[in-house]
């Protein structure tokens, strides 16, 4: 009976989709030539597709439900003994398949060789693959930096920022214009771009200190567009829509590099900057500044009541986020050697946002994974050429529906305490209630 009912439901669903998509899928019109094409085979395809798809969808939903209820059941009975998030991360489950746990990874025996192998792969990568691979990897690494920057604002400070591409643009144009007008080199422009971007970040943050949530989001979106439109319209300075071209690639002690060498060199610069970014963002996150940001993002009022200067924290978040965008911008200008305002549209801001959320807000590995996947996926989807953006959109929806917390959700750092501290007895008997471990 159950099976029949499910079948009937899926059939109805298939019918619904066939009817829904009928005009657009089956009939193709061309109002130029006044021709109409009927593609009935597509209706059948749609029917079969949605019928099968509905089962897959139901199966995945059911699995997710099951996981959720298992977790809450566990959470209540075992009183959440481990402090970390109850949800098992993707990596954890993958490892579990191999019979490993997180601790296996933590063991030096495993960790050091793994690190070494990864390091080796990353280093030989540009030499064994084509420049195309290096090229897209550079793009991906630039976006890793960008996403990590946005993560400071969004992941830590919990402020929705839809104009991040503007800071990216400021970095890129700082280098592009300085190089064009004054011949300033990459290494000098790098800190300048970061600084210009940070100043813009503070300028944006000051008027929006009072705003929250979606209102903040829309103002950042507006800010992003204003910057882009200024780049377009102030053509006397920025060369408008035709952009800045022939920007120098990063110099290496005045050596003349061939294209392949230059790309390889840029690849390593990016790699170094990514490591630098991860290092700093990680340190910030686990510092007083990071704690204040997270606290502000979690509960603004409580944070203020605990003495956190939230205005300053917001400014700090915007400025710090912008720094990375600026750096990424300079790298971008150096990599493409040509920039124009088209690279910094709303869509680009949205894409960076997707990286952070898809990867897992506030989680550094998550954000890195998000950026790598969202940049590399469309590139590797080139095989599907026409369909890649369609698939890309579908992937975003499916990922969010089935993993709303992102691919690698944030795990709060567990502070290790010295053993003697752990042994101290409670001065007051605990009245915590039944939730406490026996």
């Amino acid at each position: 009976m159950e099976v029949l009912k499910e079948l009937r439901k899926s059939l109805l669903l298939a019918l619904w989709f066939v009817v829904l998509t009928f005009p657009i899928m089956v009939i193709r019109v061309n109002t130029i030539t006044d021709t109409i094409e009927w593609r009935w085979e597509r209706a059948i395809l749609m029917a079969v597709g949605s019928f099968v798809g509905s089962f897959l969808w139901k199966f995945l939903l059911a699995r997710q439900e099951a996981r959720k209820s298992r977790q809450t059941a566990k959470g209540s009975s075992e009183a959440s003994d481990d402090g970390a998030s109850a949800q098992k991360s993707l990596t954890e489950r993958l490892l579990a398949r191999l019979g490993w746990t997180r601790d296996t990874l933590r063991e030096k025996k495993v960790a050091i060789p793994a690190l070494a192998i990864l390091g080796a792969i990353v280093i030989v990568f540009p030499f064994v693959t084509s420049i195309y691979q290096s090229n897209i990897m550079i793009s991906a690494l630039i976006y890793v930096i960008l996403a990590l920057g946005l993560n400071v604002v969004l992941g830590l400070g919990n402020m929705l920022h839809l104009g991040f591409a503007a800071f990216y643009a400021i970095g890129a144009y700082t280098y592009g214009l300085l190089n064009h007008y004054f011949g300033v080199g990459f290494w000098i422009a790098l800190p300048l771009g970061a600084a210009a971007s940070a100043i813009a970040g503070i300028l944006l943050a000051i008027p929006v200190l009072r705003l929250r949530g979606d209102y903040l989001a829309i103002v950042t979106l507006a800010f992003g567009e204003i910057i882009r439109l200024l780049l377009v319209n102030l053509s006397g300075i920025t060369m408008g829509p035709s952009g800045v071209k022939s920007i120098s690639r990063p110099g290496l002690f005045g050596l003349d590099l061939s294209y392949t060498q230059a790309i390889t060199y840029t690849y390593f610069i990016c790699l170094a900057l990514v490591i630098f970014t991860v290092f700093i963002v990680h340190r910030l996150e686990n510092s007083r500044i990071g704690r204040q940001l997270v606290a502000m993002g979690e509960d603004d009022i409580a944070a203020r009541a605990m003495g956190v200067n939230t205005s300053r924290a917001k400014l700090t978040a915007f400025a710090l986020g912008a720094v990375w965008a600026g750096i990424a911008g300079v790298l971008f200008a150096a990599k493409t050697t040509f920039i124009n305002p088209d690279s910094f549209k709303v869509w680009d801001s949205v894409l960076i946002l997707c990286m952070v959320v898809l990867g897992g807000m506030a989680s550094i590995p998550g954000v890195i994974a998000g950026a790598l996947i969202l940049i590399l996926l469309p590139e590797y989807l080139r095989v599907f050429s026409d369909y890649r953006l369609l698939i890309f959109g579908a992937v975003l929806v499916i990922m969010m529906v089935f993993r709303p917390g992102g691919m690698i959700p944030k795990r709060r750092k567990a502070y290790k305490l010295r053993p003697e501290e752990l042994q101290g007895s409670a001065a007051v008997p605990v009245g915590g209630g039944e939730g406490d471990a026996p």
Partner: protein
Amino acid sequence: MDFEFFVNLLFSGLTRGSIYALLALGYTMVYGIVKLINFAHGEVYMIGAFTTLIMVSVLTILNLPILAIAVIAALVAIVWSAGYGYTLDKIAYKPLREAPRLSALISAIGMSLFLQNYVRLAQTSDFLPFPRFLPTVRFLDNYDGLSSSQFIIFTTTTVVMVILTIFIKFTRVGKSMRAAAQDRMMATLTGVNVNKTISVTFLIGSVTAAIGGILISAHVGQINFYIGFLAGIKAFVAAVLGGIGSIPGAVLGSFVLGLTESFGAGYISSDYEDVFAFIILVLILIFRPSGILGKPAAQKV
């Protein structure tokens, strides 16, 4: 730059404002009830227009009179858009009701991208001519500052607003929608089926979006798969400007935006048209952080 010019710009602003309003209504209604920025709303608008185009072409073969074609095609398109809106909610948003709000936003972005490319692949990436079936209004012919289609857009928008206001104010479903938007838990306690109400909201939002899509496409006379994106963003800005969640706010915000753009373009420079629009937005939000008609969210401590 005389008075006539001013009046002309006023009409331009009202036309834009009307169009934004039709889209912003859907944004604001959906936001009011599920607190979600429905990024794919612009795509529903685009699909509404595309379906109309398809139906018009099909019906033309049947040799019906042009007005009948227009009406039937528009009705079919509206119904189908509503279907898309409904399905959109069920697939991409409903599973995420309890999830972090940003996840739903990303899902919406994904849906927007998906629908754009779905239409592009199933139809074409070219711009297609869209039949200009809006009737000509005779008495406007002598006046050359305003076109009939502008007049029709403005009138239709007004009618839609009035109908919508009556619907929201006086019908059972409308009241449920308002109640659910204000206090979802309490609405449930009075017997509102919130899930159904949300579906209805998506349906109505999609209907107004589709009406907008049809009107605008008939006004500009062309269409492609990408027209929803920019219009969607603008309407979203308008909705926030007016105070997102507030229906009169969305209308007001749309007209403020439309008029700002129009006067900015007319009196200063159309180069900076969007800059003016965004600056007005930022200024209004700085002085009224919840939009023109938005209620300041009282934080309970």
